[in-house]
């Protein structure tokens, strides 16, 4: 009897040991295959360039392979957490940077990154192709604009058609009684679209105290029944009635703070292709987010880093981005994919605020917002 049990324990130990060996081999071979593409570049050698980014970064394999073909550098991508967490991590590790290029700092976080001396200046080759209004560090070129995206209120087309109601178009529309109890938004202290929506209202109504400025607007929004949840995922996937996930989850809010790119995202992969996206965009409620890349201060492979930043502004990369990350290219001559042209919304006049102002006011605004909306 004892023998059987000992055999069982032996088997268990053996099995776990075998699993470890297998696992270790698997891990190794994976690393090796990555290393060898850069012709024997291990330990941060000069043929590998490391891109540090957030969890939403994505690029087609073929596009990254083209970069390798053109320049000889292989891209290694490290991602950790959402945009805010990734920037904070980069600041924390700035004395021992984990890579050569950081991508994913946006205008709401730009001042934090620049004030902490995260980047080394580099003027990208094709910067002439980028409109001046998105070049927020044009004097020093510590960061290069790569993409932009608009945070806007989205609406459930079927709901408004069914109720014979015109969907709202502007910030001011949202406080009208016709849209009572229809909007769900995100907590500004835990969600970046939530914060962007607050910034959009501040850009529209100004910072005057009392009932005039954005605070007065939010008091009206609150009495008009705005619902607040902690994350975009919950707002869009669970509470919004227009998304396919929200339909499954029986979401009952036909208005949600999301992105101008959500309508095309809703129809990707859906067959047959619908005539219209089930989701529409209230074009007068948008706040523009611009994402930047920069050469990390203390990077091991500065030449490779510069090449990567140049590549991120190239037509190849810029035209790949929309379907990979659901953002708009900053390059003027980049062509958007058909699904974006057909289902996307063009936002002609988004709201925006200078990064310095966001950095200066952010904490005060967030606590004021908390006091008005959550208490």
């Amino acid at each position, binding site marked *: 009897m004892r023998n059987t049990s000992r055999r069982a*324990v032996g088997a268990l130990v053996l099995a776990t040991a075998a699993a470890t060996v297998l696992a*270790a081999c698997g891990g190794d071979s994976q690393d090796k295959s990555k290393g060898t593409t850069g012709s024997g570049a291990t330990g941060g050698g000069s043929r590998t360039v490391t891109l540090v980014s957030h969890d939403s970064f*994505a690029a087609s*394999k073929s596009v990254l392979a083209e970069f390798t073909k053109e320049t000889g550098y292989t891209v290694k991508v490290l991602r950790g957490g959402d945009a805010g967490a990734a920037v904070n991590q980069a600041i924390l590790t700035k004395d021992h940077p*984990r890579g050569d290029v950081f991508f994913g700092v946006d205008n709401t976080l730009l001042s934090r990154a620049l004030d902490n001396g995260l980047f080394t200046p580099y003027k990208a080759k094709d910067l002439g192709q980028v409109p001046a209004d998105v070049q927020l560090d044009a004097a020093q070129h510590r960061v290069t604009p790569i993409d932009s995206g608009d945070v806007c209120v989205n609406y459930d087309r079927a709901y408004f058609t069914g109720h014979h109601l015109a969907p709202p178009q502007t910030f001011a529309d949202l406080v009208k009684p016709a849209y009572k109890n229809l909007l769900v938004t995100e907590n500004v202290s835990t969600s970046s679209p939530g914060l962007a929506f607050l910034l959009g209202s501040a850009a529209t109504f100004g910072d005057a105290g009392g009932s005039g400025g954005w605070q007065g607007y939010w008091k009206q929004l609150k009495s008009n029944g705005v619902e607040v949840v902690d994350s975009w995922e919950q707002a869009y996937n669970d509470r919004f009635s227009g998304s396919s996930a929200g339909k*499954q989850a029986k979401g009952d809010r036909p208005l949600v703070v999301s992105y101008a790119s959500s309508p095309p995202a*809703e129809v*990707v992969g859906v067959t047959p292709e619908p005539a219209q996206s089930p989701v529409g965009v209230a074009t007068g409620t948008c706040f523009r987010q611009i994402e930047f890349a920069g050469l990390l201060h203390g990077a091991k492979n500065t030449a490779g880093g510069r090449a990567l930043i140049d590549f991120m502004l190239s037509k190849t990369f810029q035209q790949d981005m929309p379907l990979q990350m659901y953002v708009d290219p900053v390059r003027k001559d980049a062509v958007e994919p058909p699904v974006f042209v057909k289902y996307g919304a063009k936002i002609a006049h988004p709201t925006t605020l200078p990064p310095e102002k966001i950095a200066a006011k952010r904490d005060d605004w967030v606590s004021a917002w908390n006091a008005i909306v959550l208490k």
Partner: protein
Amino acid sequence: MSALRTVDDRGARKAGGPQAGAGGRRAAVRAALMALPLLFFAAFFAYPVAAIVTRGLHQGGSWQFGRFADVLGDPGIRHVLWFTCWQAAASTALTLLVALPGAYAFARLDFPGRRLLRAVVTVPFVLPTVVAGSAFLALLGPDGFTDSLVGVRLDTSVWAILIAHVFFNYAVVVRTVGGLWAQLDPAQEEAARMLGSSRLAAWRRVTLPALGPSVAAAALMVFLFTFTSFGVIQILGGPTRSTLEVEIYRQTAEVFDLPTAAVLTLLQFAAVIAILVLHGWTVRRRESVLRLVDPAMTAHRPRGAGERALLGGVLAVIGLVILLPLGVLVARSFDTPSGYGLAFYRALGSTDGGTFSVAPWQTVGNSLRFAAIATVIALTVGGLAAAALVRRAGRLVRGFDALLMLPLGTSAVTVGFGFLIALDKPPLDLRDSWLLVPLAQALVGTPFVVRVMLPVLRAVDERLREAAAVLGASPWRVWREVEMPMVSRAVAIAAGFAFAVSLGEFGATVFIARPDNPTLPVAVARLLGRAGALNHGQAMALSTVLMGVCAASLLALESLRTTGSGEL
């Protein structure tokens, strides 16, 4: 026959205590056993956490102790602390209440599908909280299960949080308590009854004291888990309810106010240490040597109306609290825009979505690899630690026991960010090593190994060990031939826990920058972060795969064990 011994054996143990010379050698053995676990915790827990806390409190060349007063004086923070503690206490109580009958049923009653169901109730343990939270929202929210059945919406009440915590932690109680319960000799309770005790009295005086330490261990783990609850609170608590964990995350990852985060982390430590001291104090008074038998001998078919009703009740609770929410997720994974089908599963095999540079299904391999390595690390570290802790000792060693529990009560973002800034230079330069992921996972798995192994190891009669030693067996041989056979079941349970914990770990894993080899939960989170039917459907399909992988792994582990169930 041995009922008396079970209730209190401390007198006997003291009388048979070690001689002075043997005591010295034993201390040396203990120190040797403790060395590796201590090193592990020093390098991968204490050092990283100290680094991030120091970074927060020591800024601009001076210590920012003034922040303590600011943070602790904030009524908002005091409210958060209060809510964190009471919801954890209430969740623990509710989980024990709901799951203890389940522990009995799984340990003692023989019913068809028992093994499968035991694996299934552990599945929630690995599910990303965002995914499960969404299922609860669907069941408890408007037009949900409770709303359409009895007209009650629970999604905005604290009940939603408590029920979700039961869902996640049911298996902790069933596996920790049930593991020992199955091995308790029923003859003792029967003897007490024969001697005239009522059924209840026999249970209260014989079985309950014997189970005490493992109930306390389960309660401790559930408390620590719910104390650091993050996703459940965010989704089901709404923006007005917040735990210390959520606040630490906000201050570290979003607001970037590290001094405040550091104070909150220390506050979290203080609360966790208080709980550990309380736990140590209750357990020390309860633990005793038990008569352990083969679990196959103790299980029997349900007898009588009472046992059948109990089993029925247990199955009904499992059905409502665990199977129903899991079912919602599985159903969603098949519910495509063009009717029910496998489209989302097929999409897992391609890279077209753009979310990953590898096909999503490949994350299954990543997860299994990481979890296997983390399990081996946790079993080694936790096993050595448990072996060192078997024999009771002074404060120092008890402190070591508590230290091993701390990671469970520490914020994942603290650990994740700590890894980042502490393990980035020689001699420990692991900046983008894949090893960081299993190391972080093992940190959470180790406490489970210790808590599962320790009550069983301590229940092994010291006299058996001594008898073997007197007969000339080396300590190694004593361990191999006396202890190991008796604790093999506990090893398997501990391995299952460690594996499941690693498979489901999300918090720390997501912050550890790594080359593109995401784990299953990280992949699910990435998919959920994108709009569109296909992304969301793939997230549901991948969650279903995660459930399947978890259940299959646990069944495989259990079958390894049962092939040798002839112990003793």
